[in-house]
């Protein structure tokens, strides 16, 4: 092996770091692990709890089963116990652990006995280990107990040893990921003694069964198993530790097991075995199922789903590939995934044919697998009789119409052949019928083809082969031909329909790939959450024929309280809490899942790379088949990915806005601090002078005047700033009212009396000017700023002209001066915030014109700046307005 192979793989290292990080947020799980009931797990757990309690730890009991043992009950005393909640199930009350009460109580450590327990119907989760996982998610540490037979991968071995089937199991993953495992060990003799003293509780079984279970041989075997599991765990921990600390050593990693499963019950054993192997080898493991043209019966389909679920429960990655050649499919996949070992089951040999097939399968697998090791696991006695391998049974699931068509066409063809039999001879007739059967096979199922083959053979025999009208065949070669006819017809039909089925499967796959492509394409063109949601729901409806509703997360990373628009499903308050749970725990819940299965809808998390984007609720009519589920997951990941991109885009946009506003803030600061200081300095200076000395009346007057001017300047700045912030915050809502524009110009001219004094100011308004519907205050401010601007720029004594008129739905305001005008290069910037003309005199913040633009825009108007032909600046404002004619009202007036 190359030296570099021995070094820790960076991805693995990263994974282990992430794992550590996730673990630190999660609560820690400590398992008290024993070989069987009666070794004192609960007792040991309680003792540990009391020690923690003495250390000052906040530790409580969530669920403890004392089995009325005095020693155990004594230990419970003094510990806080969360009361169990009651579920009424089929008129009997069942007491279960109160999960929510514990989460609300939020202790440091909670004791939860019997991890493998199955909850009463109506509880949130089917299994207690799911409850525990939720507790861990909430950052609560958990102490729990498990027996070796409850481990999914060991349950079967235990059943083999003891003859007792275990129904309550936990996924191996939970055990593997536990932070601490404490083995509670007892020698078999001691255990047996405790049993005889009646100190061991066992589920209510017959005494015989108990005695059967607690045999010394059994106990020893279980003990060995438990010890080995813990030892392997220690080994693995060492490996992890070495990897994490980058200690070089004989790395076991690099081993990669691929287990090929099928739709038979034996696969379950295969999976468990492979998992154990992988665990002790420290290898990765993956499972694959090869989908062929073989049509699965309902039973087989069910078994396949069970196998797949088991794989998932065991924490084995799973994939489906489609290929008619199982061997090449497995080998291809193994090579692609860099598998080091292939594990397959050995089909039972029943007869010559299956022996040949097996030999062929195994030989080919070994031949093609190259340097990949192949393990073949022997078949299991237990499964014998449960499964009958079949060679081929045609499915008679086709509709009655297909059968009728077949029969009709065969008869029709036979009649035609019968009429022309003298010209073509009876042998040719067989070709005609054969041809027909082959054609039919392209369109119809195998059942009708079987019928067609049989029927056409019979007809040919009875009506055509001499002697006619008997089933007797005269010549031996005719008999041979009849047999051949039948076989050819049948094979032809079966082969064709097999090809067709394969095609169908491939077509379904292709359709799904295409559908996924369509979805991706449409999602990519969408922008905004709304649109993405619309598309997502549309495609869910289109491809899965189910209604859905989408709830997204908010900026605070919580689930929104509202569904996205267009959701067909109405969610109740209860549904929202389920959705919230799904969002928090990233596990599907609701109908057809293990969590809250009594709900009407199924809820799936939409997981992105960084947490969940939201939850989609669907009104699923049934469990997804394996293919559907893969397709669903693919679609969901596309949708979630798109949402994530949208969220990121929004975040990026917000960051941009923040940085822009920071830039603006700086400019504002520079500009304002100057504008504020000058008048303040003037006021301070002038008032100081006035206070300190007695100046002549004339000087004092001048100083008073300076103070007054500075104050006005300050006030103007404050007004502008306030207006700007009103504009910025979007608080400008025009309140249009009927306005006589004369009023407008008069008011502005009045307030700017002082400033306009040195100029020749004129306001020109046509005589037939109607009343206009505008916001008086805003337009007044606009005119005020524009005129003030002109008075600051234009030379004293020049003309400032204001023209107002109404034209074609628009109020036009023109303001003209004879100042220096604009530098042509700056025409585009004059309305920008803080922009100040290159030749501007000292003073001014560059806010005035941007406020003008803002106020005009608030009334849906536009403003243009331009230079006048003979010098000077011109502003043109156009605002859409409603009007009322003055004169009309005057005519109505009673004189």
């Amino acid at each position, binding site marked *: 092996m190359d030296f570099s192979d021995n070094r820790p793989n960076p991805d693995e290292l990263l994974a282990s770091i992430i794992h550590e990080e996730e673990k630190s947020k999660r609560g820690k799980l400590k398992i008290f692990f024993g070989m069987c009931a009666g070794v004192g797990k609960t007792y040991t757990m309680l003792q540990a709890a009391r020690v923690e309690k003495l250390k000052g730890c906040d530790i409580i009991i969530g669920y403890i089963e004392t089995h009325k043992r005095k020693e155990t009950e004594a230990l419970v005393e003094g510990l806080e116990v969360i009361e169990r909640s009651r579920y009424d199930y089929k008129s009997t009350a069942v007491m279960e652990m109160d999960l929510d009460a514990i989460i609300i109580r939020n202790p440091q450590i909670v004791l939860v006995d019997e991890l493998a327990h199955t909850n009463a119907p109506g509880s949130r989760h089917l299994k207690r280990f799911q409850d525990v996982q939720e507790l861990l998610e909430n950052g609560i540490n958990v102490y729990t107990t498990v027996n070796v037979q409850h481990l999914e991968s060991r349950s079967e071995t235990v059943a083999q040893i003891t003859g007792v089937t275990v129904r309550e199991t936990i996924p191996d993953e939970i055990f593997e990921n536990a932070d601490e495992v404490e083995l509670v060990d007892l020698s078999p003799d001691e255990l047996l003694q405790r049993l005889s003293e009646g100190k061991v509780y066992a589920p209510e079984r017959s005494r015989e069964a108990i005695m059967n279970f607690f045999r010394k041989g059994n106990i020893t075997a279980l003990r060995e198993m438990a010890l080995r599991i813990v030892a392997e765990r220690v080994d693995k921990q060492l490996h992890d530790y070495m990897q994490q600390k980058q200690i070089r050593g004989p790395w076991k990693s690099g081993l990669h097991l691929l287990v090929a499963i099928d739709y038979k019950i034996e696969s379950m054993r295969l999976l468990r075995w492979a998992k154990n192997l992988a665990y002790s080898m420290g290898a990765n493991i993956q499972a694959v199922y090869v989908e062929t043209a073989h049509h699965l019966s309902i039973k087989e389909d069910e078994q396949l789903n069970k196998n797949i679920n088991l794989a998932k429960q065991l924490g084995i990655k799973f994939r489906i590939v489609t290929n008619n050649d199982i061997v090449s499919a497995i080998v291809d996949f193994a090579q692609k995934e860099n598998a080091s070992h292939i594990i397959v089951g050995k089909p039972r040999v029943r007869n010559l044919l299956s022996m040949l097939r097996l030999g062929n399968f195994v030989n080919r697998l070994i031949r093609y697998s190259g340097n990949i090791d192949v393990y073949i696991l022997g078949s299991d006695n237990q499964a014998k009789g449960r499964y009958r391998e079949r060679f081929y049974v045609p499915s008679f699931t086709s509709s009655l119409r297909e059968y009728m068509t077949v029969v009709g066409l065969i008869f029709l063809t036979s009649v035609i052949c019968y009429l022309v039999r003298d010209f073509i001879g009876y042998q040719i007739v067989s070709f005609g019928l054969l041809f027909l059967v082959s054609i039919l096979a392209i369109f119809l199922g195998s059942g009708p083809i079987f019928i067609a083959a049989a029927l056409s053979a019979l007809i040919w025999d009875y009506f055509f082969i001499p002697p006619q009208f008997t089933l007797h065949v005269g010549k031996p070669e005719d008999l041979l031909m009849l047999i051949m006819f039948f076989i050819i017809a049948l094979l032809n039909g079966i082969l064709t329909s097999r090809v067709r089925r394969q095609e169908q499967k491939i077509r379904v796959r292709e359709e799904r790939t295409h559908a996924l492509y369509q979805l991706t394409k449409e999602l990519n063109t969408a922008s905004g959450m709304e649109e993405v949601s619309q598309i997502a729901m549309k495609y869910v409806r289109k491809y899965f024929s189910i209604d859905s509703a989408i709830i997204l997360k908010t900026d605070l990373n919580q689930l929104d309280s509202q569904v996205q628009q267009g959701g067909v499903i109405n969610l109740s308050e209860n549904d929202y809490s389920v959705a919230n749970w799904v969002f928090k725990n990233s596990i599907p819940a609701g109908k057809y899942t293990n969590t809250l299965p009594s709900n009407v809808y199924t809820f799936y998390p939409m997981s992105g790379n960084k947490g969940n984007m939201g939850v989609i609720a669907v009104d699923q009519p049934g469990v997804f088949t394996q293919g559907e589920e893969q397709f669903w997951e693919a679609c969901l990941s596309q949708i979630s990915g798109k949402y994530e991109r949208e969220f990121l885009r929004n975040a990026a946009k917000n960051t941009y806005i923040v940085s822009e506003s920071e830039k603006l803030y700086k400019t504002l600061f520079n500009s304002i601090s100057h504008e504020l200081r000058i008048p303040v300095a003037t006021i301070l200076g002038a008032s100081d002078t006035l206070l300190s000395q007695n100046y002549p009346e004339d000087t004092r007057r001048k100083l008073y005047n300076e103070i007054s001017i500075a104050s006005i300047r300050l006030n103007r700045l404050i007004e502008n700033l306030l207006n700007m912030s009103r504009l910025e915050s979007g608080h400008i809502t025009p309140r249009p009212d009927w306005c006589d524009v004369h009023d407008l110009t008069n008011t502005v001219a009045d307030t700017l009396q002082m400033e306009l004094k040195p100029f020749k100011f004129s306001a020109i308004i046509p005589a037939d000017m109607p009343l206009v519907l505008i*916001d008086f205050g805003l337009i007044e401010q606009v005119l005020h700023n524009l005129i003030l601007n002109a008075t600051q720029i234009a030379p004293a004594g020049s003309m400032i002209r204001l023209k107002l008129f109404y034209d074609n739905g628009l109020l036009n305001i023109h303001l003209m001066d004879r100042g220096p005008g604009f530098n042509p290069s700056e025409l585009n910037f004059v309305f920008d915030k803080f922009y100040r003309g290159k030749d501007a005199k000292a003073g001014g913040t560059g806010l005035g014109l941007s406020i003008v633009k803002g106020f005009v825009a608030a009334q849906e108007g536009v403003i243009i700046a331009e230079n006048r032909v003979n010098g000077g600046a011109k502003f043109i404002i156009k605002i859409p307005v409603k009007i*009322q004619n003055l004169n009309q009202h005057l005519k109505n007036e009673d004189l």
Partner: protein
Amino acid sequence: MTNAETILIIDDEVQIRRLLEITLSANGYKISEASTGKDGLIHAATTHPVLIILDLGLPDADGIEILKKLREWYLKPIIILSVRNSEEDIIHALDNGANDYLTKPFRTGELLARIRVAIRQSQGTSDDPILTFGSLTIDLASHTVRKKNEILKLTSTEFSLLALLAKNEGRVLTHQFILKEIWGMGYLEQTQYLRVFMAQLRKKVEDDPAKPTLLNTESGIGYRFGG
């Protein structure tokens, strides 16, 4: 100045109170000060002010609430002096019984003028049916208006409008108030009538309609006669 008239200032800003105290005492008023709404109400009851200057942004209560409480029994003028300068705030205060409204910053000269007008109005409800403003004479009894001794031809609505404003000389009348008084409750939204008649009236009454001295516009709020 023994029997000088007392003006109550309710404002939490010391500097404003000081400025007002200096300015108003220099003009012969006696000053009573309160920095909270609660104190203001007590002072109003104990010092018998002829006029109250009320700030809207008080530390313990909204000025409008104080205004409403004062108006339950206090009939003399109240002038609002506030930094709130939105039209809504001003109209709201006027509708709740304020006689006048000035926004900070303000010109002391203007404040003094408003105070004088308000006090005069509250005292001088003379029975004289003839009101005179410079060259303009309004005879409320005979419904005639003369300018430079010439009778002006006014329509009945124009006369009612002019008379309403003139009787409330110096005081801001909101658009709504005028519409209600002249046209009735059903016309509160019909501001266009008001604009038309006001423009018409200015042409007849004012010396220069472009620079009105009697019929003044208060932007976005209403009209004020003279002042």
